[in-house]
């Protein structure tokens, strides 16, 4: 039965490649990346073999505890847990509970995260290849640790299944998750500085962790090689008890989940609130604008990027305050302009097959393009201008301001024009509607990368006049170039915007059905 479950998982994995060879390539790239990182960690762990016990122990325990935490937290917030072996699908088969548990646990190992964790964990045997007993203890610890990771993640996902099925929770959690992710850099900087100032802190922290369920399993090898057999024995008990306790929790939760599937209820609401649809002009392009703006606010795949934008100045200001050099802040405006404009380059891909409504109602391509670009422009324009001015308020050196504003507006308008063309012609792999922004999107990864980088290359070319003007100003220091840029940027940008919207609209008119056919492959 356990073997059957594992075979099922492998078959599902194999069949998912059959859909298209590109998917296989995408998975291969993702796999190589993850396994590459795992490989580096493994090599580092084996190199720790020659380090002193205390140092090696600190690294192994902290890393192991982080892995356990990651397995518990990431699947919930990213709603990216691998549900190919969803226990709910086995309700009708009356699989004996112990076998179901064992099968699901081992099945969790098949797949990139499981494999990577296993490789890294087993490398700790190399770290503790000292004396006859330590490798054995490390091996036992690694196996216990891996199983704890998987069982814990299953416990958490089963317990929160009801919560995770609720759309509101999914939307909110994926947004909240963005914030620490973006601020990771500065946070890490603060933490490392704190740690560098008190080197003993980490060692002490690891020692404490090794007595908790998070770190006990990972500390076995180190304690044995340090000769603390008594401590190792106690920690073995802690780790074993943790695993047993978690398994029991999982069993209870699973038994309950199998008879009462999660119900995602939501309250009914009467109409009367058309939102933006009652504000915009009643034209097809206006309707598209209202729809797109509603999505910018309501769909986490869009609003995720809106959360990032206000964090950008915080991030750059922080980095500037580290060095006392705020010059780099100048890129804030152009960078924001680029990010916002380029965000709509995958607009039709985000629609997925809902785009059929546009096709079925025969809306003109021009209206479609114009509506989407306007929606982005409505908030991107003030944000870009504000973010272009902000750095100069910090430095109080206003000489470069006109040039930077011109450059930013040039990027914004040109980018919107180009994105209107790109999204009318090419589909890219994006998370499906309703999925977390972090979920690995289905579809052609190679084409996505090609379209994205190709498009950015073309954009760079299109804004080169503004770029050259900005460079000239920086080199010569002549503010005249800045003033020229302030005129050239918006003017040239408007031309590009108009051309892009018109060309994209024409392509959409002629190739709408082909675009829909491409979209329906990604689902």
């Amino acid at each position, binding site marked *: 039965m356990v073997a059957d479950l594992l075979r099922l998982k492998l078959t599902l994995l194999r069949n998912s490649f059959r859909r298209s060879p590109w998917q296989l390539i995408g998975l291969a790239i993702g796999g190589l990346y993850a396994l590459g990182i795992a490989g580096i960690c493994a090599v580092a762990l084996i190199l720790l073999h020659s380090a002193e016990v205390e140092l090696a122990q600190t690294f192994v325990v902290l890393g192991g505890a982080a892995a356990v935490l990651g397995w518990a937290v990431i699947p919930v917030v990213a709603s990216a847990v691998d549900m190919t072996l969803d226990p709910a699908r086995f309700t009708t088969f009356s699989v004996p509970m112990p076998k179901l548990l064992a099968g699901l646990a081992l099945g969790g190992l098949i797949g990139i995260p499981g494999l990577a964790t296993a490789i890294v964990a087993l490398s700790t045997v190399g770290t503790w290849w000292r004396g006859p007993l330590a490798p054995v203890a490390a091996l036992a610890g690694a196996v216990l640790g891996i199983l704890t990771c998987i069982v814990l993640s299953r416990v958490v996902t089963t317990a929160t299944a009801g919560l995770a099925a609720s759309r509101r929770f999914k939307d909110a959690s994926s947004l909240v998750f963005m914030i620490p992710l973006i601020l990771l850099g500065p946070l890490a900087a603060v933490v490392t500085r704190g740690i560098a100032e008190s080197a003993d802190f980490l060692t002490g922290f690891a020692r404490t962790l090794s007595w908790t369920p998070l770190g006990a399993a990972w500390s076995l090898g180190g304690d044995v090689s340090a000769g603390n057999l008594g401590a190792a024995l106690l920690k073995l008990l802690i780790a074993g008890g943790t695993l047993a306790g978690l398994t029991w929790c999982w069993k209870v939760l699973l038994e309950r989940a199998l008879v009462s599937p999660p119900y995602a209820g939501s309250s009914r609401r009467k109409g009367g609130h058309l939102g933006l649809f009652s504000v915009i002009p009643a034209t097809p392009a206006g309707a598209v604008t209202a729809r797109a703006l*509603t999505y910018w606010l309501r769909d986490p795949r869009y609003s995720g990027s809106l959360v990032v934008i206000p964090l950008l100045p915080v991030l750059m200001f922080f980095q500037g305050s580290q060095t006392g050099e705020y010059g780099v802040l100048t890129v804030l405006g152009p960078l924001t302009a680029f990010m916002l404009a380029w965000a709509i380059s995958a607009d039709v891909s985000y629609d997925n097959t809902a785009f059929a*409504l546009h096709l079925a109602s025969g809306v003109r391509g021009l209206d479609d393009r114009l509506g989407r670009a306007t929606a982005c422009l409505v908030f991107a324009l003030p944000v870009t201008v504000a973010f272009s001015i902000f750095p100069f308020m910090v430095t109080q050196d206003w000489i470069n301001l006109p040039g930077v504003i011109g450059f930013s507006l040039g990027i914004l308008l040109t980018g919107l024009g180009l994105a209107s063309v790109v999204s009318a012609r090419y589909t890219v792999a994006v998370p499906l509607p309703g999925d977390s922004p972090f979920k690995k999107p289905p579809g052609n990864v190679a084409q996505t990368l090609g379209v994205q980088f190709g498009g950015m290359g073309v954009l760079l070319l299109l804004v080169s006049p503004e770029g050259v003007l900005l460079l000239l100003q920086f080199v010569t220091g002549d503010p005249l170039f800045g003033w020229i840029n302030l005129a050239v940027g918006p003017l040239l940008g408007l031309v590009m915007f108009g051309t892009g919207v018109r060309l994209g609209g024409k392509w959409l008119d002629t190739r709408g059905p082909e675009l829909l*056919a491409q979209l329906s492959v990604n689902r």
Partner: protein
Amino acid sequence: MTLPQPDQPIPPPSAPALSLRGIAKRFGGTIAVDGISLDVPSGSFYGIVGPNGAGKTTMLSMATGLLRPDFGTAAVQGVDVWAHPPEAKRLMGILPDGVRLFDRLTGEQLVTYAGLLRGMDRAVVSSRVGELLEALDLTQDAGTLVVDYSAGMTKKIALASALIHAPRVLVLDEPFESVDPISAANIRDILDRYVASGGTVIVSSHVMDLVQRMCDHVAVVAAGRLLAAGTVDEVRAGASLEDRFVQLVGGRSKTEGLEWLRTF
């Protein structure tokens, strides 16, 4: 091409509501639709039946301008769908099967969006949306996001989006799937009245009883080919539509075998 002027297609008098000529589509190695020619008379309630994977959805997608055919032509009220898409689409209301909706809009917003996309006046849209939601029993959920709708409600809101611009021809792909019996009866009433006042409805379904009771014409499609077409009485030739369908399509497995199923 019988059209007098390419830019101003004038439908010939009494043109069929939908006219397919040798329409065909191939996906990779499989031929989904293998040259179907079909005329749907104006003012008829036309059922399209066929087993799963027969090519019904592919055929209707090609007829409505959502999927470009490899061969053949499609015309709505005499307007070539693939030569004059905007004009043809103005005449049609389409409920496609298996596509997503803009489901982060509320039901009310979605139908309003469909109306405004067609270039309709705001006041007209607003009054029609209210009536449609009322008729489809969605008023209580008008402000709920479509993503939170049940499958049947989603079908109904998609139907409302297809009706909003009062089309001459309605093409509905599996409109009754997962719709409750009361809503289905309401929808049938709406469609009956629509046909009585001169509109044309084309529905695909694999519920034979429903088609026999509801439609006046029927076409049987299997394996991408048209097996029979005509009035329901012509096609069923005295038998029930279901029996006639099984006879035409074949593929009923012999009921011998599976003895073990009775051994418990």
